[in-house]
């Protein structure tokens, strides 16, 4: 089986191709603000180096959040379009799970969501979501566990590690989603929507 993995929701842009359980291409770099221009050339390179064509792919795995709103949409739009055009299944993956995937112990992944808030999710060594993904105040996040993050906090955190094989093995048999209905999982309303809700309440 041939799988494509794309993550543009967090600090590192990650693109991988797996063929019959072997990684034939892996890109995992911090590209700063250049995700939207860097992603497609990287996908193109992934196919070239793996010696396959887009039509050869059996399934697409894409990170649909949480993280940078724009980053999420960049990767998700590409994978929705690929899945729709090639009529192949697409599976959404949590960015917090991806950050934890390289660890063989219980960790909580953190993404800074500003103003004291974080996106947080805890995973065990088999990538079970033991502390459900959420948008929360940092002070409310479960204590006394190993934290993984690209950002620095007042406490110590480990650098996220990607194990793309582990992620794909866990999700490869999941039910497929219609690409039209595959959407970002921002875990957070837009500011305009939040304000509107608050105005309604008061």
């Amino acid at each position, binding site marked *: 089986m041939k799988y494509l993995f794309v993550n543009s929701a967090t600090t590192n842009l990650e693109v991988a191709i797996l063929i019959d359980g072997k990684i034939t291409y892996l890109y995992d770099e911090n590209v700063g603000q250049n995700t*939207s*221009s*860097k*992603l*497609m*050339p990287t*996908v*193109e390179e992934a196919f070239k180096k793996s010696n396959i064509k*887009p*039509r050869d792919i059996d399934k697409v795995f894409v990170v649909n959040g949480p993280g940078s*709103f*724009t980053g999420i*949409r*960049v990767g*998700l*739009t*590409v994978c*929705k*379009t*690929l899945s*729709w*055009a*090639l009529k192949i299944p697409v599976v959404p993956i949590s960015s917090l799970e991806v950050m934890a995937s390289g660890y063989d112990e219980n960790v909580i992944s953190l993404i800074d969501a500003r103003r004291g808030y974080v996106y947080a999710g805890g995973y065990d060594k088999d990538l079970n979501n033991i502390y459900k993904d959420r948008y929360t105040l940092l002070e409310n996040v479960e204590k006394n566990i190993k934290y993984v993050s690209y950002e620095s906090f007042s406490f110590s955190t480990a650098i996220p590690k990607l194990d793309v094989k582990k992620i794909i093995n866990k999700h490869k048999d999941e039910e497929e989603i219609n*690409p*039209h209905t595959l*959407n*970002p999982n*921002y875990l957070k309303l*837009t*500011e*305009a*929507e939040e304000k*509107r809700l608050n105005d309604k309440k008061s």
Partner: protein
Amino acid sequence: MYILGIESSCDETSVSIVKNGTKEISTVILSQMDVHAYYGGVVPEIASRMHVENITIVIEETLKKAKMTMDDIDAIAIAYGPGLIGSLLVGLMAAKTLSFIYNKPLIPVHHIAGHIYANNLVKELEFPLIALVVSGGHTQLVYMKENYNFKVIGSTLDDAVGEAYDKVARVIGLPYPGGPLVDKLSKKGMDTYNLPLPLNDKSYNFSFSGLKSSVINLSHNERQRGNEIIKENLACSFQNRVVEILTKKTMKALKDYKVKNLIIAGGVAANRGLRKSMEKESEKNDINLTIPEIKYCTDNGAMIAAAGYYAYLRGDRADLDLNAKATLEMK
């Protein structure tokens, strides 16, 4: 040659197929206007979110309507700027993905060039021409000596004309988007309020923020004095000033450049007051005027596909690293 055009620069997700830059085969437009109306204007993050939810659906519907598949398409044209960056990116990423999968040329199109070429779907452009592009985000006078050759001779120095309309509408108490409602209301009113003719100089530039402020101040002062604003008359006075300066500078450009062809494009081209004034002055000065149907005035994929054809003929191509541009010069 069949071009698939994608437009997502503001709050419309639209895809079209156009043959040879002139014949519209199919178009789907998904407007988010009703959603943004809750907030009194376009909320960029909500716009981006809705684009990503709808983009593949709109592409599929466009192909279905045309009874075509991606294999029948010869190239993909994308509006990559100017516009809201988050919105533009959704259309752009979809366009790049299609270009990659099907190995079709990717044609970068300037959003304003698209508005101008909406006219080409009605009647092939005749050159040289002057184009007045008026919308919620843009106000420009463009001189074209031949196909896909743009020289911007005038722009707004502050607000776009449609933006000024929406703000004035809010002052009068009309819901968003207020532009068309101001136009409607102005028909029932008289030009009784003393408002300035904005940037009445020799340049081809425009300025609407001063006029907008005059409307706000006037209405504020009247209310302080305990007087009711006569909405119809204020709408009429405002619209008359806008239409007069747009018409005056456009006619001056036609005369200075010795051009007989005029096209009007963009959402505000739907304004009845502007249409009437331009028709009258064009007839008087023996100008060949084209204004597209209302459906071609607002943002749509067809205008991008039409412009894309001429961009393609000029040799414009983009690589997969093409990025979206919030601001972009027309070349």
